[in-house]
């Protein structure tokens, strides 16, 4: 669908540009978003947090536009199932392939062919690049969860392209 293509092109360009752009932290050492020291080695972290932050704001905005019935969820698990089915279909035209939980606030969402990784060769070749392509989506999940009343930390990992796992850890306030 053409709309999805436009988002994918924009996302790819953002990863390429913001990644390169933010990897030079400038003179001196400054504090990153999570208080980490950002020096020459921290450049990568800074650009990932910029992408994640943008994803977070977009996730919040999307969350505010969800149909009314989604706001009536009672259980945390229902919300995660909603993310895996409805949100993922709305955003990526497919459902998440699996959802696992330890029933203690940690969820692992697995996508076996994540659309934003599909264009990269499959297998292990571009593994190093993969985190840059996942940062925005981690933020997106975190932002939507925020609007649905859940504070979380979302990280992603790739063992082999284009399969990736999103780990959602609920933060108890």
């Amino acid at each position, binding site marked *: *669908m*053409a*709309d*999805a*293509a*436009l*988002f994918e*092109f*924009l*996302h*790819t*360009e*953002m990863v*390429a*540009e*913001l990644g390169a*752009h933010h990897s030079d932290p400038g003179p001196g050492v400054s504090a990153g978003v999570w208080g980490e020291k950002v020096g020459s080695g921290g450049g990568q972290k800074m650009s990932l947090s*910029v992408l994640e*932050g*943008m994803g977070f*704001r*977009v996730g919040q*905005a*999307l969350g505010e*536009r*969800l*149909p009314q019935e989604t706001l009536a969820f009672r259980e945390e698990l229902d919300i995660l199932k909603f993310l895996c*089915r*409805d*949100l993922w*279909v*709305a*955003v990526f*035209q497919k459902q998440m392939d699996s959802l696992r939980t330890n029933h203690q606030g940690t969820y692992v969402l697995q996508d076996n062919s994540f659309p934003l990784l599909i264009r990269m060769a499959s297998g292990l070749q571009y593994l190093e690049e993969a985190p840059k392509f996942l940062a*925005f989506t981690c933020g997106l999940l975190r932002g939507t969860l925020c609007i649905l009343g859940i504070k979380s930390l979302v990280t992603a990992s790739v063992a082999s392209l284009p399969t990736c796992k999103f780990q959602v850890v609920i933060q108890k306030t």
Partner: protein
Amino acid sequence: MSRPAHRRPEYHKINKDLFVLTYGALVAQLCKDYEKDEDVNKYLDKMGYGIGTRLVEDFLARSCVRRCHSYSEITDIIAQVAFKMYLGITPSVTCNNSSRTEFSLILDKNPLVEFVEELPAGRSSLSYCNLLCGIIRGALEMVHLAADVTFLQDRLKGDRVTEIGITFLRKLDEKKYRRKK
């Protein structure tokens, strides 16, 4: 039988909104990174250029347009096929000079600014949609056409309409581009 989830109207809107919202987040981030409006504009144009060089392949694969014989035809296709396909709008086209190398696309509706009421404070020279200019320029370059693409009018700046000007320069690599018989 209920409709499959991705065809439900509210989810279609989420998909459209995703691009528009992401674009808004990008502009906001660039405004943080650059103090001067012209730097943000340049950066948006540069990113658009990168997107355009790749988007043109996607466009040609989806649209099966036939070979064009004039700048006028090309501009019509940009307005009536490409804009329609990717943004769901059809700008009107006007030709601005007798040698038929300068054109304008008049955007009546603009989905990119759906959630933008006015330019941010202190950003009166920001060309909010400058990504579009870069996209058009990059796409044209991939089919061996050099063009200047810029916003001539912008509703967000108080103009009556939003107008993109396309000025075709020369064909790139003209010797190489001559059709082989």
